[in-house]
């Protein structure tokens, strides 16, 4: 039975081979003589092919969950990264393998140049290799935009802007790439068609041609070459005629692709994969910034590390010479590399080629290092990067929240989020006079103290205690920089409260608790609840002779005079919004208002923006 079974399989394979000729194909694929034997230094081409195969596998899997439109791209990538089982690993592999491909490309190019593998008869294959390098760069550039996050959006915007300086066709080229005048749906559909269709198709064709020509010429063995050129059985055509390859290798002492080189290649591929997996697991997937926002500047916009040298390079080209830096010099460098096969014919040509490649790579390394060093030393950049990271983390938090992502996209989550918008609005519209914990809301430092109060913790017990402290009331944290520094409130705190006895100070502490409870601050809710009795006592004390708030302020319908802001609901959502809308309203400072603008009536801030600002100041998010 067993024999019959084995015989049956053999017959079936014979039949299949007769109909298809697969054995010859397998032989063509696996049987390759390697003069001088298998070498570790021959693995780079195989690892690159492997890396690209990984990109096809993971890319198609990502494709099955990705949506190329401006209201869904970020959202679908968020879904892959954070919701889909194993999605983070899938995307992580695709992301870091793209990085690995860049490294492997450089190693492969160096190997080819050092070994002189660009020389005749391999010129055409060398050019195919250069074309492949450009295809891979184009794949990286198009892939960077697809998550539609702030980083990819602004970096790609810079890249397509630079495309417009191409003579004659520049603007049309940009418009065709972008799919119109502005970035939007069509930019994504076009970049996706390039990234997942046009470029991979071209890549497959070129790799097939590259491998075919490589097999035709065989490996370049350096020292063995001269012997090989005349008599070597190094190529597939000769091998076919040579009959049994094992016998051939035994005759000449050369190695075989299968299994000697194949084993080395497989080990190298496994090492690459292990390195990529290490990076994926270490960072828990691939980075995803906040969703792209055309109206929100992104000062941390930088390309991926392998394009950083170009980014840095452009800084050195002042007005009018940009085209030289962006197009002419890179074009000349690529042309010189493409002409290496001819330069290699001169006596010192090969040395020149090796030196030139080394110099270009060293220059790229230097520029890359400079770019990162300058960014690290730039406090604005560091701050922008922190802000970007905070926004990225925040939007994921919101998207994972009970309301999820609305159909209008994740950007609306950030646009309606007090924690995100509050500090930006504060920095834009408040920080010319106010500070927040000493900074401008976004962490920016001031050269000199602000004129108006610091609003961190406004209306909290701690904030009010400081306001009623004779030592603090006239400092820049409160009224120090305003007209009120010479006003009644400051005088009252500095004379009357300064003279308080222990019992009065006790009463004052209760009054502070009562006033602060008016704000109903969410982060004080537990304290307000616990101190209910003291707060009731304090509320009564505010109108008492001992504390006497109502001598100048209205509180719960009681007021001797109306000289300061109404204290009923002090610091509450409604009170604070109304105050920002119009501090000169009789309910607040009236005509004693110093310099604070009427943000509502003058439409400096919309009601929605005031709501966000108030929400942030009150810690509501």
């Amino acid at each position, binding site marked *: 039975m067993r024999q019959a079974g084995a015989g049956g399989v053999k017959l079936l394979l014979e039949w299949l081979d007769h109909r298809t000729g697969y054995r010859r194909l397998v032989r063509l694929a696996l049987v390759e003589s390697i003069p001088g034997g298998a070498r570790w230094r021959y693995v780079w081409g195989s690892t690159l092919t492997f890396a690209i195969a990984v990109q096809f596998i993971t890319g198609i899997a990502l494709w099955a969950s990705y949506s190329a439109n401006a209201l869904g791209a970020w959202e679908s990538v968020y879904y892959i990264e954070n919701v889909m089982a194993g999605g983070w690993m899938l995307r992580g592999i695709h992301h870091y393998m793209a990085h690995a491909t860049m490294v492997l490309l450089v190693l492969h190019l160096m190997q080819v140049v050092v070994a002189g593998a660009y020389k005749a008869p391999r010129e055409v294959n060398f050019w195919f290799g250069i074309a492949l390098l450009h295809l891979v760069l184009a794949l990286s550039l198009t892939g960077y935009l697809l998550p539609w996050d702030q980083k990819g959006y602004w970096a790609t915007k810079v890249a397509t802007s630079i495309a417009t300086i191409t003579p004659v066709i520049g603007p*049309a080229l940009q418009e065709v790439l*972008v799919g119109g005048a502005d970035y939007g749906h069509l930019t994504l559909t076009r970049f996706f068609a390039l990234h997942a269709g046009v470029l991979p198709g071209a890549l497959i064709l070129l790799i097939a041609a590259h491998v075919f020509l490589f097999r035709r010429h065989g490996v370049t063995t350096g020292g063995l070459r001269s012997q090989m050129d005349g008599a070597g059985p190094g190529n597939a055509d000769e091998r076919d005629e040579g009959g049994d390859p094992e016998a051939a290798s035994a005759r000449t002492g050369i190695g075989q692709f299968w299994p000697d080189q194949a084993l080395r290649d497989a080990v190298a591929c496994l090492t690459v994969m292990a390195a990529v997996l290490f990076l994926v697991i270490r960072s828990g997937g691939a980075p995803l910034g906040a969703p792209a926002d055309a109206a929100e500047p992104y000062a941390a916009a930088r390309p991926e590390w392998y394009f950083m040298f170009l980014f840095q390079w452009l800084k050195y080209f*002042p007005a009018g010479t940009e085209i030289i830096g962006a197009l002419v010099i890179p074009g000349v460098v690529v042309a010189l590399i493409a002409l290496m096969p001819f330069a290699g014919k001169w006596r010192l040509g090969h040395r020149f080629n090796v030196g030139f490649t080394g110099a270009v790579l060293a220059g790229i390394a230097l520029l890359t290092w400079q770019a990162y060093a300058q960014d690290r030393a730039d406090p604005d950049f560091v701050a922008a990067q922190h802000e970007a990271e905070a926004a990225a983390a925040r939007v994921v938090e919101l998207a994972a929240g009970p309301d999820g992502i609305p159909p209008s996209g994740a950007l609306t989550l950030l646009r309606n989020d007090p924690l995100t918008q509050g500090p930006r609005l504060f920095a834009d519209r408040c920080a010319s006079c106010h500070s927040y914990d000493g900074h401008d809301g976004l962490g920016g430092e001031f050269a000199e103290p602000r004129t108006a109060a610091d609003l961190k913790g406004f209306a909290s017990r701690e904030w009010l205690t400081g306001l009623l402290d004779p030592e603090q009331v006239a400092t820049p944290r409160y009224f120090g920089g305003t007209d009120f520094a010479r006003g009644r409130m400051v005088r009252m705190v500095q004379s009357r409260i300064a003279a308080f006895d222990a019992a009065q100070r006790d009463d004052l502490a209760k009054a502070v608790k009562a006033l602060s409870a008016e704000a109903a601050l969410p982060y004080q809710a537990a304290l307000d609840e616990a101190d209910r009795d003291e707060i009731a006592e304090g509320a009564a004390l505010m109108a008492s002779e001992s504390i006497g708030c109502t001598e100048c302020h209205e509180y719960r319908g009681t007021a001797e005079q109306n000289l300061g802001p109404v204290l009923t609901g002090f610091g509450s959502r409604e009170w604070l919004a109304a105050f920002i809308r119009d501090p000169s309203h009789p309910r607040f400072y009236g005509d004693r208002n110093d310099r604070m603008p009427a943000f509502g009536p003058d439409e400096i801030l919309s009601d929605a923006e005031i709501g966000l600002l108030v929400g942030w100041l009150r810690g509501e998010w």
Partner: protein
Amino acid sequence: MDQKPQATDEPQVAEEGFSYGPAPAPRRGFLAGVAAIAAGGLAFLAPLWSGIRAALEPLERPELDANLVPVAKLAAVPDDGVPHKYRVVMDRVDAWNTHRQLPVGAVYLRRTGDSVEALNVVCPHAGCFVNVAADRSRFVCPCHKSSFDLSGAVNDPASPSPRDMDSLDVEIRGDEVWVRFQNFLPGRAEKEPVV
């Protein structure tokens, strides 16, 4: 024995496949070849033409007029000679979606007395958003460090920007500041609007 004949069979089979039948007369063969190329080419014409036309479609779209939009109340612009940033909110059609009142960009408004100047925030070098430096003495681009004075003029010979920041037309209508909001092609010495 049964393997060898198969191996030698194959190329013959393949060759026979292409040289089947008697060779055609030379002239007829030439005409047939031309006809085959013409017919084949014609068959591809419609899909290629449609495909290329779709790819180039953005170039066929009508040019958009610059949009005059209200940006801020005049009272909201501090009269301090320092540029302040304002969002530009307008309707925007993005392919198959129409967005009502979408923030599409931003402008710097700089007010001196009753006159207001407007600058597009986009850097004419490579399209980043330009910031006002912390000391409020100049503009600086966070990307390639282009530098401009507060009127938007390039103020540093090493600045990579090929031109001054793009000024925009301003109209004061009643108590509102209206700006003709436009983007311009980056990376060139002349101001050319993006259509």
